[in-house]
C-alpha cells in the first residue's frame, strides 16, 4: 500500500566503483547502501524532498523491493503488498529515471487498502521487530550508512530509529487516492486513513475515504486513529451495499469508530512508563469521512479534521464542507473573535469533540452535497490545512489536474505542508467527483 519513489538504477557502486547487479540493495564489496540517492525532482518531488539524509536512505531501502523478493527480509514491517511485485517488473526500473512511483499499491486487493498496518500496532515499546528473536534485519542504517538495523528497529551503530511503516503511506485506486506522512517534527505518524470502493445498494459505485488524526496529548494516539478509520470503513462497506442512505451510514460509521477507539482504553492496556505525561488520557482521535455515491457527496466528522470541495473550474467557489469541533471554531461561531484572531490563538487547535473513552458525548456531524460541476473532495487532517486554511487557500494549492491525477494531487498537497514546515503529521485523501467511470463497478 505504500508508494515511494524508486531509487535510480546504478550500474556501479558510487563509493568503490564495484559493478552492481541490477537489483542490489548494497554494494557487495564495500557494503555501501545503494538506496542513498539524490533527491527526486519529478512529480513525487515534494515527498522525496523531505527524505533528509537521516532517514532518506532507509525509507527507500525499507520500501524498495529487494531483488529476490521478500524472502531476504526479516523485518516484520515488510508489507504483504510488496510481495507480489518484484522490483524488476516495475516500469520504474529503467535507467535514467530519477524516481517513479511504485505501481504495487494500485494492485492491492480492491476494497481493503488502509493507511494503517495490517498487524496490531504496539506503540513505541513494541517497535517493529520485537517479534521473534533474530540477530538483526540485515539492512543497513540510512542515517549513518555504517551500522546494521537490529531487531528492535534501531541502528546498531548510531542508534537512529529506522522508518516505520506508518511514517509514509500512499494509496491509489479508481476514485480515490490518499497519502499520509509523519511530517518533519513528529517522531511517528499518528494519523491514519482508510479508503475503499464498494458497490452501492442501487448498483452504483460508492467511494469511501476516512481520515483520522490521533490526539497527541492522549496515550497511544496512533492506535486510536488506526482503529477509528478501520471501524468506520468497515461499517460503510457493510451498510452502503445494503442500500443504507449515505448520511445514515456515515452517522453509524462514526459511532462504530468511536466505540472502537473507546475500547482501546479497556483495562489491560497498561500505560507506558516513558509516556508518563500522556498517561492520564485515554486514546483519542478525530475522524472525517467522505462518501461519493453517484451525484451525491456525503461527509461526516468529529473533531478538527476537514473536508473541502475544490471545483475544476477555479472561477467558481470552493468550499469547506466541515465545521471544526475546536476552540477556534467555537470562538468564531459565538462571534467572540474573528477567524484570524481565533486561529492565531495558541488554544486554536484545542478540540472540543473527539472519539475516545473520555469523550463527553459522541455527536457525529454529517452533511450531504450535490456538486453541480466536476471537482475534487479533499479530506485531510490539520497537518495539511494548517498550511491552507480557507477553502480559497486550499483551492489555490490543489493542482489543476487533480481530478485526473488524484495521487499526484495528494502528494503535492503533502509537499505543500512539508514545505510550510511539516509541524504535524499530514494526511490527505483526494476523491475525484464525479467518480471516474473507468473504475471498477462503474455505473
Amino acid at each position: 500500500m505504500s508508494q515511494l519513489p524508486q531509487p535510480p538504477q546504478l550500474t556501479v557502486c558510487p563509493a568503490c566503483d564495484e559493478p552492481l547487479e541490477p537489483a542490489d540493495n548494497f554494494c557487495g564489496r564495500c557494503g555501501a547502501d545503494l538506496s542513498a540517492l539524490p533527491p527526486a525532482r519529478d512529480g513525487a518531488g515534494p515527498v522525496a524532498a523531505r527524505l533528509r539524509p537521516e532517514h532518506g536512505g532507509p525509507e527507500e531501502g525499507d520500501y524498495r523491493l529487494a531483488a529476490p523478493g521478500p524472502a531476504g527480509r526479516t523485518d516484520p514491517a515488510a508489507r504483504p503488498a510488496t510481495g507480489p511485485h518484484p522490483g524488476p517488473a516495475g516500469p520504474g526500473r529503467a535507467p535514467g529515471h530519477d524516481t517513479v512511483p511504485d505501481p504495487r499499491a494500485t494492485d492491492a486487493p480492491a476494497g481493503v487498502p488502509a493507511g494503517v498496518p495490517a498487524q496490531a500496532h504496539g506503540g513505541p515499546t513494541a517497535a517493529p521487530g520485537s517479534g521473534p528473536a533474530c540477530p538483526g534485519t540485515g539492512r543497513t542504517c540510512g542515517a549513518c550508512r555504517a551500522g546494521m538495523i537490529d531487531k528492535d528497529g534501531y541502528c546498531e551503530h548510531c542508534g537512529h530509529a529506522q522508518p516505520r511503516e506508518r511514517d509514509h503511506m500512499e494509496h491509489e485506486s479508481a476514485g480515490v487516492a490518499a497519502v499520509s506522512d509523519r511530517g518533519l517534527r513528529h517522531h511517528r505518524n499518528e494519523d491514519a486513513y482508510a479508503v475503499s470502493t464498494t458497490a452501492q445498494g442501487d448498483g452504483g459505485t460508492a467511494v469511501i475515504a476516512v481520515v483520522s488524526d490521533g490526539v497527541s496529548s492522549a496515550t497511544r494516539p496512533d492506535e486510536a486513529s488506526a482503529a477509528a478509520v478501520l471501524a468506520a470503513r468497515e461499517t460503510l462497506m457493510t451498510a452502503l451495499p445494503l442500500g443504507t442512505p449515505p448520511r445514515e451510514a456515515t452517522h453509524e460509521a462514526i459511532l462504530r469508530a468511536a466505540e472502537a477507539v473507546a475500547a482501546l482504553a479497556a483495562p489491560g492496556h497498561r500505560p507506558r512508563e516513558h509516556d508518563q505525561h500522556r498517561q492520564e488520557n485515554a486514546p483519542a482521535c478525530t475522524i472525517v469521512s467522505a462518501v461519493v455515491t453517484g451525484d451525491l457527496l456525503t461527509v461526516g466528522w468529529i473533531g478538527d479534521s476537514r473536508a473541502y470541495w475544490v471545483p475544476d473550474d477555479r472561477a467558481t467557489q470552493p468550499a469547506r464542507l466541515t465545521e471544526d469541533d475546536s476552540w477556534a471554531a467555537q470562538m468564531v461561531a459565538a462571534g467572540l473573535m474573528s477567524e484570524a484572531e481565533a486561529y492565531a490563538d495558541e488554544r486554536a487547535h484545542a478540540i472540543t469533540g473527539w472519539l475516545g473513552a473520555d469523550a463527553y458525548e459522541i455527536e457525529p456531524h454529517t452533511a450531504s452535497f450535490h456538486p453541480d460541476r466536476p471537482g475534487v473532495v479533499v479530506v485531510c487532517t490539520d497537518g495539511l490545512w494548517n498550511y491552507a486554511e480557507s477553502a480559497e487557500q486550499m483551492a489555490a494549492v490543489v493542482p489543476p489536474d487533480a481530478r485526473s491525477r488524484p495521487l499526484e494531487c495528494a502528494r503535492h498537497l503533502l509537499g505543500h505542508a512539508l514545505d510550510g514546515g511539516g509541524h504535524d503529521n499530514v494526511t490527505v485523501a483526494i476523491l475525484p467527483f464525479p467518480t471516474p467511470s473507468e473504475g471498477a463497478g462503474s455505473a
Partner: protein
Amino acid sequence: MANFSKPRVPRFSAEVYQNTHLPEGGREVNAIVTVTATGGGTTGETPVPAFASSSPSSSPSGSFPAAAPDAAVVIMVDSSGSMEYPPTKMRNARDATAAAIDTLRDGVAFAVVSGTHQAKEIYPGGGRLAVADATTRGQAKEALRKINASGGTAIGTWLRLADKLLASSDAAIRHGILLTDGRNEHEGPKELLTTLEACAGRFTCDARGVGTDWEVKEVTGIASALLGTADIVADPAGLAADFTGMMESVMGKEIADVSLRLWTPLGAEVRFVKQVAPTVEDLTGRRTEAGPRAGDYPTGSWGDESRDYHVCVRVPNAEVGQEMLAARVSLVLPAPDGSPPQVLAQGLVRAVWTDDLAASTSINAQVAHYTGQAELARVIQQGLELRKSGDLDGATAKLGRAVQLASRSGNDDTAKLLAKVVDVVDAAAGTVRLKAKVSAEAQMTLETRSTKTVRVKK
C-alpha cells in the same frame, strides 16, 4: 529442554523508566532500569540454565541443580588481640560464626579462616573446603574453640587465603563473609587495594565491622570492590543475628557473575552507570569493554531480588522528530567456554527529540527520586568528612541538605540516623544544628549506611 522440577535459577526482567523526550539540542538521557530476578518454577518461561555441567554438586540429570545451592563460602573472623577487649567480642564472634555455620545448607562447600596479621585456616584445613552436613557443621563449630585472639590486622592476607580456598571449588557462587573489629594496621592501604583488585570478579564478599574501632572506608571499600554488603554491628551481641541473615542471603543466591551490559550508539558518552537500589554503588569506572560500543559492569550474584540502576548517557544531537536508541541495557551471563554470553533480560533507553516543551521538560519521577538518593549519600559522606575536619558550617550545610533529601524522599531509616548526628530544626527546609556530642557508633552507622536508598513511594 523440559524442566519439570522447580529450578533454583531465577528469571530476569528489566523495566526502563525514563522521559524519552529531549528538547531541541538536548543530549543527556537519563533512565532508571529496574532489574528483577525471580525464582523459577512458577511459570512456563525459559529459566536460566544452571552451571550444572561443571559442578560436582549438581544433580545427575544435569539439567538443573540439586536442592543444595551450587555455592562455596569462606567465613573470615577477625582474631586480632583487640577482639579480647572486651572479651565478649571474641565470644560473640565465635557464636556468630557458629550461627552462620548452622545456616549453611547441606552440600555447600565452606571453610572458616581466622584473621590477624596473617590468615589461618581454622576448618577444615589443608587448603580445602568442607562440604556442609551435620558432621562437618559440628566439627567446624568445635574448631572455633581453637581461635585465640592475639596479633595484628592485615585483611588482605585473609582475602587472599579466602580466594585460594574458593578457587579450589568450581561452585558458581563463591562468597566470603568478613568480620573485623579494627583498622587494617599491619599492611599498607595499597596492599589491601591490590588484593581487592585481584579478588574482584573471583568471589563476592560481605564485610562487617564490629564495635567502633574499625575504619568505615575500609569495610565499605571491601564490600564495594567485591560486590557485597557492608554494615556496622556496634554491639557484638547483635553479631549472631547479622551473620545468620548474611548467610541466608548467600544461600538464596542462585546465579553468579551477572554483568550489566550497556550498548550506546556511536558518538555517545556514558556519563555514569550506578546501582541506586538497594544501595548506591557507582559502577562507571568498572566497565570492561564488550564488543563494539558496549561495555560490561559487574553486578555479582543474584537471588530473588530487585535492583535499580541509573544510566546516564550523552547522545549525539539529532533533529526534532528523530528517534534514537540511546542505550540498550542488558543483563548478561558470560558463557564459560567464551561463546557469546546469554542475555537474561534487556531494556531499551530511547531518545525522541520534540518541540513539545511539556513533554521534554518533565522529569521522570524515578530518575528524580534516585538522583536525590545519590545526592543524599554524597552529602552525608561530605558532611561527616567536613565535621571531622572541623568545618562546622560546611558540615551543617551538607547534613542539613541530607535531612531535607531524606525527609522528602521518605528515606526514614537514614532520617533517623541523621537525627542522631544533628538536631533537626526544620526537615522540609533542611535547617539543622550539629549535635555537640555525637557517639562514634552514631557517626559510623550513618557513614556506613549512607548509601542505603529507598524506592519511589507508590
